[in-house]
């Protein structure tokens, strides 16, 4: 691999502008990446605060802190904020920071659109969150927005729909940018099958986004016209069918699940080889597995709707198609394991998060398999078992991978090493917290506790209390995360450009911190 041109012989006037306008008008992929990541962190804490109020209410049976209507608003907003505000922007932020550096490009392909796709997000979420203070409160029908319930939302309704449209536009622009960057701006010699896996997973994710975000936009537009313009897409009274909405929503919703996890697969596939000091086992198999998962995600949506009344043949098809996804996913898990096998492993914080990802994501995957079994799903549907399942794939799955990525590339971003002891402390607090928080929810679900309720029968009391204690540990240990980052920026030791002994890839040929424009001259790939 060639050395990057690190001495900036020209364009000295081309550094970042000063002050607030730097951030408002920036077209630089690193600035925009930083904005995305900070925005995501703010949303993570906002949605997390809502989750803590939910867990506080559920600490004991009975109604303690909030009234049920507000509780429903919290569950709805928590999900919308975490999905569209925390996890997705975090991955877009990582893509912005890393894709140009990984493929040897100076910047993203469409920098002005990049600026726009970030800056509509704060407005979208300001609008969404403002609904909490409106008459009738925020949306309370669940993030899945099922009619006819969601049509009973008060003044918040059009604001929520418009906010979702804006988020969708932002995602679509972001994914167009990602695809054009990857297809157009790779350094000479960087063929598609030489791209780092994070680039591959993002390329596939971007196509998924492009295919399904517009479908969600269509679905919420139909909700809007049903409520205000007299159409009856989903209203039985006018000949519509509310189940149709579920089909359209989950046609978006299931690929959306993979949009949130495929980049995580990419992150973990970068980190594990570094700390196992071995190349990734089965690189091509990983690429094809990712593509297979993406394809399958389009033909399994109705497994979210087994109880909505479907012929046996339909249930069977969606059950088996869903179970089929376990195969490419298992390919990935086995490949990560095989990469670690007989590697010279060390366990720095990014590796700890990555290994925890593999183990805990697999638990979430297995509970997903259980939910795919139709007769079992009738028992599990809409219980805490579902809550436990998707939180296992999203929190110790997607969120852990984002944290792993942050620790892994933080020295490259800031030029400073974070404090390893603090990082490991954060990991262990999170690891313990997340399991105490979500594991008991499996038992609650199997015992029959429904989702989205502010009060429950007393036989569920013990596990709920344990879960709430875990929530407190997990929630507050994320403040620790912020402290580790601030400490890194302020007191961190200067990082080398290689940073990690076993790290491979173009980004590690750049100095730390990475220069404002990544590769002014394209590197040559062998």
């Amino acid at each position: 691999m060639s050395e990057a041109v690190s001495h900036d012989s020209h364009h000295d006037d081309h550094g970042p502008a000063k002050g607030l306008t730097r951030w408002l008008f920036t077209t630089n992929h690193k600035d925009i990446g930083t904005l995305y990541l900070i925005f995501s962190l703010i949303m993570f804490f906002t949605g997390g605060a809502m989750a803590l109020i939910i867990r506080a209410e559920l600490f004991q049976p009975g109604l303690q802190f909030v009234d049920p209507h507000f509780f429903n608003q919290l569950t709805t907003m928590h999900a919308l904020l975490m999905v569209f505000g925390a996890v997705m922007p975090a991955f877009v932020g990582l893509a912005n920071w890393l894709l140009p550096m990984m493929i040897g490009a100076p910047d993203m392909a469409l920098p002005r659109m990049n600026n726009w796709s970030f800056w509509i997000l704060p407005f979208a979420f300001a609008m969404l969150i403002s609904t909490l203070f409106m008459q009738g409160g925020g949306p309370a029908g669940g993030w899945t927005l099922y009619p006819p319930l969601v049509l009973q939302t008060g003044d918040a309704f059009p604001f929520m729909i418009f906010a979702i449209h804006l988020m969708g536009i932002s995602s679509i622009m972001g994914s167009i940018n990602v695809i054009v960057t990857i297809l157009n701006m790779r350094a000479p010699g960087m063929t598609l099958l030489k791209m780092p896996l994070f680039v591959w997973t993002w390329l596939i994710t971007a196509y998924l986004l492009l295919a399904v975000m517009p479908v969600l936009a269509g679905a919420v537009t139909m909700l809007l016209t049903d409520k205000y313009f007299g159409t009856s897409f989903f209203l039985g009274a006018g000949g519509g069918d509310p189940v149709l909405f579920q089909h359209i929503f989950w046609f978006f919703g299931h690929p959306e699940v993979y949009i949130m996890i495929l980049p995580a697969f990419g992150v973990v596939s970068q980190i594990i080889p570094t700390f196992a000091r071995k190349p990734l086992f089965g690189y091509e198999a990983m690429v094809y597995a990712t593509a297979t998962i993406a394809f399958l995600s389009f033909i399994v949506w109705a497994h979210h709707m087994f109880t909505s009344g479907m012929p046996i043949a339909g249930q069977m098809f969606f059950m088996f198609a869903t179970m089929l996804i376990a195969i490419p996913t298992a390919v990935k898990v086995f490949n990560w394991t095989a990469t670690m096998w007989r590697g010279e492993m060390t366990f720095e914080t990014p590796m700890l998060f990555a290994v925890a990802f593999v183990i805990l994501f697999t638990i979430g995957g297995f509970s997903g398999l259980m939910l795919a079994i139709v007769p079992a799903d009738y028992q599990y549907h809409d219980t805490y078992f579902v809550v436990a399942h998707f939180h296992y794939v999203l929190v110790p799955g997607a969120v852990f991978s984002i944290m792993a990525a942050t620790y892994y590339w933080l020295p490259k971003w800031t030029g400073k090493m974070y404090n390893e002891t603090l990082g490991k402390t954060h990991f262990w607090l999170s690891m313990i917290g997340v399991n105490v928080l979500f594991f008991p929810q499996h038992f609650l679900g199997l015992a029959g506790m429904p989702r989205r309720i502010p009060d429950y029968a007393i036989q569920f009391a013990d596990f709920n209390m344990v879960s709430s204690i875990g929530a407190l540990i997990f929630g507050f240990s994320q403040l620790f995360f912020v402290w580790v980052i601030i400490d890194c920026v302020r007191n961190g030791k200067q990082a080398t450009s290689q940073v990690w002994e076993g790290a491979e890839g173009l980004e590690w040929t750049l100095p730390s911190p990475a220069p404002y424009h990544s590769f002014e001259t394209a590197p040559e790939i062998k």
Partner: protein
Amino acid sequence: MTEPQKPKAKPLALRLLAIAVVMFGFGFLLVPLYDIFCAITGLRAPIEQVAETDIESSEIAAREVTIEMVANRNNSAPWEFRPSESIKVVDTGSIYETSYFARNLLDEGLTATAAPDIRPVEAAKYFKKIECFCFTAQEFGPEESKDMLVRFMVSKDLPKYIDRITLSYTLYATPKVAGNNQ
């Protein structure tokens, strides 16, 4: 160093944007596709009328099937609505009659539409309606009550594993009222 030919940024971006636009349209296309799919598979209970003379005289022996009658109203509809009998044991191949009772609770006139549903869905196409209040809109005067008739027959071709059918009606006020419910 020769650059390999790569697509230019702008046309590629526009092509990708076109994908997004097409997928937005696809979301709406799902609406008629869903109707066609339901019609082909018989997922939705058919509302069309079957003439008494069209009833088949099959060689298959008649057997007993339990029909459960259910009445629903959506939350904004000001009705009292219930089946006059909740369970009826019928023979396949014979015509039966039952009725639903509805009363308008408002002191103004209302138009009602009833949407039928049948479970299990596999039974829907074997449940023949000869006369049904769901075929037409029902007019109600202020506080008027009505017994609304359903004449039906369960086809002898009903698959053997089905011995119990739920017939459900949901009564809606006219869309103008239901569409703007708060």
